[in-house]
């Protein structure tokens, strides 16, 4: 996973290129082995057809008022964008996405470190427990959501339990407009926890034991040892986890669809991803949904690269 450090392993410097040699001759000379484009073409072709071209198409649509129920699309310039940026509903779905993403970035990161520290022992027991934490990662979000829906509904196990403990009106986990978003965030976090803890466990393997021991001899308590020795060594793991969680948060759709369908109430859990699909496929407003999609793309790109930069810098500083 070298998204994180793309720069290091490529040892060849561009300065070694010798432009005066014709390409054919260069290809034949050992050490100047150039690679035929044929190698790349099938992959690139499909990528262009199914990712790049659609993005361009989406951008094109976003400048029109295309709507399946009113087939004559007209060019309307940036109108969709200005509409969206002043539309309460769109701003709300931005807020919803931000809140959800924050929950999803924080909870599994914190929980992941805790679980990794707890299970960072070589015996079989801990190995088995690690596998348990990873199971939800390989389950489909639909299955995970259905399981939690059964637990969280008012006559589900959790509220039945709370009533048994004497609560008269236990929280409406998915029915209270103020709570539903946090609940969805929790469910996604539960699913991602195993991913994070496995990455942190791998990071812990890189912590030099001698360093920990010598720190212990110097009288450093567990917290000080964690803060000064372990924590900096976990920085690359945190970078990977955070970027992964960030992207998970931005594209959250399945859980929302199954657990709340964007409600309760008007869009209280409607993420941008959900809104794009809703507007595009069930309201059939292709132009508007394309503009949303392009804005979403820009936001995802800007935020992820900013965060990535920040975390990389932090890795160096620590």
């Amino acid at each position, binding site marked *: 996973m070298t998204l994180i450090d793309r720069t290091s392993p490529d040892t060849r410097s561009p300065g070694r290129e010798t432009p005066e040699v014709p390409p054919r001759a260069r290809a034949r000379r050992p050490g100047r082995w*150039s690679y035929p484009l044929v190698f790349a073409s099938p*992959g690139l072709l499909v990528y262009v057809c199914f990712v790049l071209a659609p993005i361009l198409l989406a951008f094109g649509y976003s400048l029109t008022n295309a709507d399946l129920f009113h087939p004559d699309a007209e060019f309307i310039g940036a109108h969709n964008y200005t509409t969206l940026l002043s539309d309460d509903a769109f701003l709300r779905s931005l807020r919803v996405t931000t809140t959800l993403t924050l929950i999803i970035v924080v909870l599994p990161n914190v929980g992941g470190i805790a679980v990794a520290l707890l299970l960072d022992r070589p015996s079989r027991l801990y190995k088995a427990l690690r596998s348990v934490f990873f199971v939800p990662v390989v389950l489909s979000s639909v299955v995970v959501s259905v*399981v939690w829906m059964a637990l969280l509904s008012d006559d589900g196990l959790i509220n039945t339990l709370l009533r048994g403990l004497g609560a008269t009106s236990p929280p409406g986990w998915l029915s209270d407009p103020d709570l539903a978003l946090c609940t969805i965030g929790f469910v996604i976090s539960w699913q991602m926890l195993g991913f994070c803890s496995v990455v942190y466990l*791998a990071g812990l393997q890189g912590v030099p034991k001698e360093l920990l021991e010598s720190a212990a001899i110097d009288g450093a308590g567990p917290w000080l040892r964690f803060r000064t020795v372990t924590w900096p060594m976990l*920085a*690359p793991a945190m970078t*990977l986890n955070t970027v992964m969680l960030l992207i998970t948060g931005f594209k959250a759709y399945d859980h929302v669809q199954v657990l709340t369908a964007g409600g309760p109430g008007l869009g209280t859990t409607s993420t941008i991803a959900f809104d794009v699909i809703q507007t595009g496929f069930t309201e059939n407003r292709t132009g508007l949904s394309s503009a949303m999609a392009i804005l979403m793309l820009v936001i995802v790109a800007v935020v992820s690269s900013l965060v990535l930069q920040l975390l990389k810098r932090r890795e160096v500083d620590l």
Partner: protein
Amino acid sequence: MTPLRPYVRPLVALLVTSAFFLPLYLVLANVFKHGPDITASPASPPVPPTLDNLTEALTRPDRLFWNGLINSVMVTLLSIVILTVVSAMLGHYVARTRSGFGRIALLVLLAGLMIPPQVILVPVTEVLDATHLMGTIGGLVLFNVGYYVPFGVFVFSGFVRTIPIELEEAAAMDGSGRFGTFWRVVFPLLRPATASVLIFLGVWIWNDFLNPLIILGPAGGTTVTVGVYRSIGQFQRDFGGMFGLMFLATLPILVFYLVLQKHFVKGLTGGAVKG
């Protein structure tokens, strides 16, 4: 510093893991229970166990599970095989080439890692419509290949860089063709990368919900994951039937994970966290 008593850590670890696992336990237990027992005592263990829920899911008259299974297996297998072939070659190309085009291609591909599928889904349906691939397994497979090729390239290109180029140059001097060199010399060395690509993409594509729902549409039938979603409405209060279907839909991917667990974790962490 006061060392913890030796039983504290395993105890805490067991407790935390049990709490974490509770939701999955409930599904597992209730798959093997009769409907009335599920509502009466959802948390009790399934004693004596029954296979009724599984039989019910397996023998539905509309073959929701079997048709879904066939579609899921075909889509997943075709997608990951093609993806491995295509992205190994492309990953090798971008790792080795020094042309400006190659560098740009790599950047554009890596950017693709961040694109949420929702952004491109509307236009993708038009591309597929124009090529008469909408509603077909082929269409879904092609979309999967396009959408996941950045991930494949990202893993393969990273791995190719760890292989000394001299190996390939030597093979090239032996007169081996470029494809020959790649498939006979380089590709076998990429086995760990291949494993992680197969495993990750296998899991993602199997579990995918939105893309099959829209691209496969109704005509090509559903996948098991979409089938689970559809059964929510039909079973409604029949948790036994629903959990049975969920269990069966999950079983193949769970077995896949348990068998390849070691590679999975390696693929996830390989080179990523050592800085």
